[in-house]
């Protein structure tokens, strides 16, 4: 099994991003995803900068580098940028919207299907395979049983060897996308005058219930889980059902420690007790996502 470092979903200053990927070079990750997936107004790194950083990582490491692309694309300008990223001529691309699937298919290039593309069944997998999918990350709300059913059907229908399966296994879960920017709203600003305020919240803004229970994280137009998803205790199960890649989300520097921890877990599994006020694994067990099974 391989380990991947997912795309960072927060908005950080350029120097912090560069510092982070400097560390990523020597991390336990076999695959590194990078790029802006949330908001096209975030331009500390522009498309050419992401591609430059990606090429540098590809040159200087033995890791596979993948360019992750935007999830909610609304304007022609965003599509122009998306096309630039897709047609980079070198690095693999993660599609997070069907627009990217369409563009990659037109380019006749293989691609990864990211978590924001709604693939809930094996018929959909087959359609995406025909378009050029070579790796699939299931929607984060789906369970282990659901995945097992799909992978079993993929074997029965002789398509299991045509794609790798990756599972989002650690980090804040991307849960929703809106036209509205909730971070700008939290500062009482309209999106058109957001002043790029997401940069002041490198871990987003916590949205709690009035009883102090942590509910969500506001990250611009994206809403995330307030608890970090953690499948450390399910690693053996993932392996047994034939999952190829474990994804650790690039929330912060903790991700590097987690990569080491998951790597060790693959060799000598240990039982960890999750902290219910910080972590969750409910989605995997088909119960409320925010809970711990």
């Amino acid at each position: 099994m391989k380990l991947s470092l997912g795309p960072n979903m927060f908005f950080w200053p350029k120097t912090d991003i560069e510092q982070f990927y400097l560390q990523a070079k020597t991390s336990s990750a076999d695959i590194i995803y990078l790029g802006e997936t949330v908001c096209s107004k975030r331009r500390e790194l522009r498309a050419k900068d992401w591609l430059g950083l990606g090429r540098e990582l590809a040159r200087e490491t033995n890791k596979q580098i993948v360019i992750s692309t935007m999830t909610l694309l609304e304007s022609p300008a965003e599509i122009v940028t998306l096309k630039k990223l897709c047609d980079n001529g070198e690095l693999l691309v993660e599609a997070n919207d069907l627009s990217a699937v369409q563009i990659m298919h037109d380019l006749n290039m293989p691609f990864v299907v990211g978590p924001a593309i709604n693939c809930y069944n094996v018929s959909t997998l087959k359609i995406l395979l025909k378009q050029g999918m070579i790796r699939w990350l299931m929607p984060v709300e789906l369970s282990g049983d659901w995945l097992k059913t799909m992978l079993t059907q993929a074997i029965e229908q002789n398509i299991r060897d045509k794609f790798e399966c990756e599972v989002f296994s650690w980090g804040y879960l991307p849960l929703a996308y809106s036209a509205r920017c909730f971070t700008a709203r939290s500062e009482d600003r309209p999106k058109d005058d957001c002043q790029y305020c997401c940069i002041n919240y490198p871990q987003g803004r916590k949205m709690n219930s009035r009883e102090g229970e942590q509910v969500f994280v506001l990250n611009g137009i994206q809403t995330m889980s307030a608890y970090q998803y953690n499948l450390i205790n399910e690693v053996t199960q993932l392996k047994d059902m034939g999952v190829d890649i474990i994804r650790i989300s690039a929330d912060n520097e903790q991700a590097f420690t987690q990569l080491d921890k998951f790597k060790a877990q693959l060799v000598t599994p240990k039982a960890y007790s999750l902290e219910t006020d910080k972590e969750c694994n409910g989605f995997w067990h088909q119960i409320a996502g925010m809970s711990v099974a």
Partner: protein
Amino acid sequence: MELLCPAGNLPALKTAIDNGADAVYIGLKDDTNARHFAGLNFNDAKLAKGVDYVHQRGKKLHVAINTFAHASGEERWKKAVDNAVAIGADALIIADLGVLDYAANKYPEVERHVSVQASTTNLEAIKFFKNNFDVDRVVLPRVLSVQQVRQLAKTSPVPLEVFAFGSLCIMAEGRCYLSSYMTGESPNTVGACSPAKYVRWQETEQGLESRLNNVLIDRYQADENAGYPTLCKGRFDVDGDVYHALEEPTSLNTLELIPDLMAMGIVSVKIEGRQRSPAYVEQVAKTWRMALDRCNKNPDNFQVDGAWMKTLANLSEGSQTTLGAYHRKWQ
């Protein structure tokens, strides 16, 4: 421009047609549609009556099969397509790629509309659906501004339908797992957001509290109207500020955009609310029929009647309406 109204049952369907709908959309009585609520939707017998009523009056029936097919139950979604076609549906509203593929191959002659749940927000995504499933219409999610809808309408190879009135989903539809994060059930998987079985109301010393799967969504003072605890419309605490962090209880109302939408060539305006009563359907259909007729007669001088706005506000969440994402300031 077609007026497309919701119907959760046969009386609502008849009311919609009688009050000016050009078409109605319905769901079957199972989890294949995104309003899978107890006591709602159509069994086979009711469906047959509904189709007859609509067709005898020269109107159209759309069937929403717009949840995502379960890995272990794809047959149920295919059967829903078979049933809808057998009964004479004029259009199938579908979100799942596998289900669209099935419908396109088996029933190429029956119209396929890309459901709002498929989250199709740009030209390349529209091309994907056109190229792969030869779809006849795309229903746009409620995340685009009017300018963005206009741009898309100019270039889209497929006719577009937009949401015109009703409960406002503020997230890109089909891409929201907030409900399953809190309850284990989402629109994509079970066809319901913030399902009623997880809702609990409680009078406390601090006020009336609404909870969803035990998470406090809102707390109301005696002078405040309590609304259904849809989880994105509660009051939460962000660093000490308590406010509607995501959205207030409000409904979408786009009466004032009618001339714009007509000029852009939008083919259909959709009213939300299959879960609402026939009385709601009557009021909304009647009001929108009057508005569309007036605009058709004289699009250059169209003005929204104050009485229409009042009628619609009274049917809205929190008795208030918004232009939502169509208006950039909302974003």
